[in-house]
Structures are given as C-alpha cells and as structure tokens.
C-alpha cells in the first residue's frame, strides 16, 4: 500500500485535480441562484486554472527536472491571484448595490432590463 503511493504526484495528477475544481466551479456558476454562490464558482474556476499553471511551471514535477515553462508559470499564477482579488472586490460591490436596490441576491430577480 505504501508502494502504491510511490510516484503518484505527476503533472497529470495535478491537471486532474485542477479539472475537477474547474468543473465544480462551472457547475457552481451555472446552478447557484445566490449571486455570492456564482462568485464562489468563479473563484473555483480560477483556482483550477492556477493549479495547472503551477504544475506546468514546476521543476519538481517535470520529468527531466527542468520544466519548459519555468518561472513563467508561477508569475502567471501570481497575476491570476491578483486579478481574482480585483474581480472579487468589484463583483461584491455590484452584489451589495443590487441587494440595496432589490433587497435580494437572487440572480434570477435581476431582470429589470427584461423587455
């Protein structure tokens, strides 16, 4: 059983974890009626993508000890984290504004522009 654990962490396994988080985020964005739930789905999607960036850029996981992406993957992951923070701030402000005007955070009720 211990030997079964050997060599389990490769780039492919990181990609699978990232894919699962991405799919969970997509379902969250599509299904949740709470605007904050949609926001959380976006965070999950960004994290799944971030995991892929880090896995591709990691020298530790690369088969020959030197990944082709190198440091660029980590820089991209840093930018994604920063942009996710900015996006969360604006989306939260919009949600609070919507809540102030409509007294609900149900995205299905945001149909004022409905013809």
């Amino acid at each position, binding site marked *: 059983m211990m030997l079964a654990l050997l*060599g389990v962490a490769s780039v492919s396994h990181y990609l699978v974890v990232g894919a699962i988080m991405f799919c969970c985020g997509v379902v969250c964005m599509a299904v949740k009626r709470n605007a904050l*739930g949609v926001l959380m789905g976006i965070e999950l999607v960004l994290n799944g993508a971030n995991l892929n960036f880090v896995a591709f850029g990691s020298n530790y996981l690369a088969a020959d*000890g030197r990944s082709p992406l*190198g*440091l660029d993957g980590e820089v991209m992951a*840093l930018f994604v984290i920063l942009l996710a923070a900015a996006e969360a701030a604006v989306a939260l402000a919009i949600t609070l504004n919507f809540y102030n005007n409509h*007294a609900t955070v149900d995205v299905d009720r945001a149909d004022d522009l409905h013809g």
Partner: protein
Amino acid sequence: MNQDAFSISLSLFALIDWHGFFFLLFAAIACIAALMVVLTDNVVRMALHLILSLGATAGLFFLAGAEFIGAMQLMIYVGGTLVLLVFGVMLTAQTQLVALRTPAGDRVLAGILAAALLAVLVQAAFSIESWQKSGQGIVSAPTATPLGMALVGVRVDQSAEANLLDAKGGYLLPFEIVSVHLLVVLIGAAYLARAKRRRVPRPVDLMASVDSVEPRSTVDSPSTVLSGGAE
C-alpha cells in the same frame, strides 16, 4: 525488543512516500470541498468549504515547489478575498436568502454537462507521455527571489544563458498594469459599494410630485427602507 520495534517503525517511516501521501491528502481535501461547495445550498457552508478547498490548493502549491505562490494563495486568497466574500455573505444573510434552492432539472442538466467536460479534461490530462512521469524529486532553489526580480524586469533564473537579448523578458510592464488595475478597481469598488445617502426631497419637489401624480416604482421602496436602516 524495543529497539527492534523502533527500527522497524523507522524503516516503515522511511518507506512511505510522503510527497505522494500529502499530495493525495491535499488533492482529496481540495476536490471533496469543491464538490461540497456545489452540492450544498447554504451559502455560509459554501463559503466555509471554499476556504477549505483553497487552503488545500495552497498545500498543493507548496508540494509542487512553488512556495511563494502557496504563501500568496494563503495570504491574498484565503486571508483577503474569502474574508471579503464572507463579509458579503454576512451583509446579505437574510433567512430566505441563505438557502436558495435550485430546481432539480437544472442540477441534473448541469451535472451531465460537467461530467462530459470532466471526461474530456481528464482524457486530455493523460494524453501526453511526459506529463505522466513523476519528477525526479530535484528540489530547486527557493523561487521568491527570482520571482521578485522577474516582476521588476530582471530574469535572474536565465542569466546563465549568456546573451541577455535572447532571454525571455521580465514582467515589469504587466506588473505596472496590474498594479494600476488593482488601484482603479479598488477605488471603483469603494465607490460602488459606498453607503447611499438618502435624498430628502425638498418641499418644492414634493409639491410638484403631488401635482403630477408620478407613480414611484415599487422597486424603490425596499431601497429607501434599507438605506434608512443602514445610516
């Protein structure tokens, strides 16, 4: 005999692949917490599971040798963004809004689509030969310094390649753009989310509005109640 037991446990300890063990642990926590975010309807529980999922992702970053990104994930994401989200949850937590239920048909449809997407992604993840080989366990130098130098435009990780013109460029311009972007976004967010001051109609306006009987939309009434309560 004690000595034997100790040495046996020590050799067992050395036998376990701790990197693989912690990878499986963090991966399981991240995936199960992400699933729970989807499956639960209660927005407070969703926030808690999201914190768990993102924290486990930070552990995966540490395991991949990206310790600076892992620390940033914990500080910015878990410490900043999620606290912001939790505050949003608290500010809007009315009893009828905490658990908005989704129709079952939507859930099933989204589940089928997500399963199809997941199948494609997993198939793609195992399609390349070199991605499946695990690494040789070469622990690289700490990445914080090269990362910081790359952000100010100097790629110290590539200085071995003698010709600097051939080397990949730094990230000074994207760094500046992201900085200004973050500043603008935070000012905009503060402007959008500021407490609205209720406009008190002057008596003249009041008379005029009485004359021309202008029906106020029903949408406005909760906003006046709320902003009155907030101030």
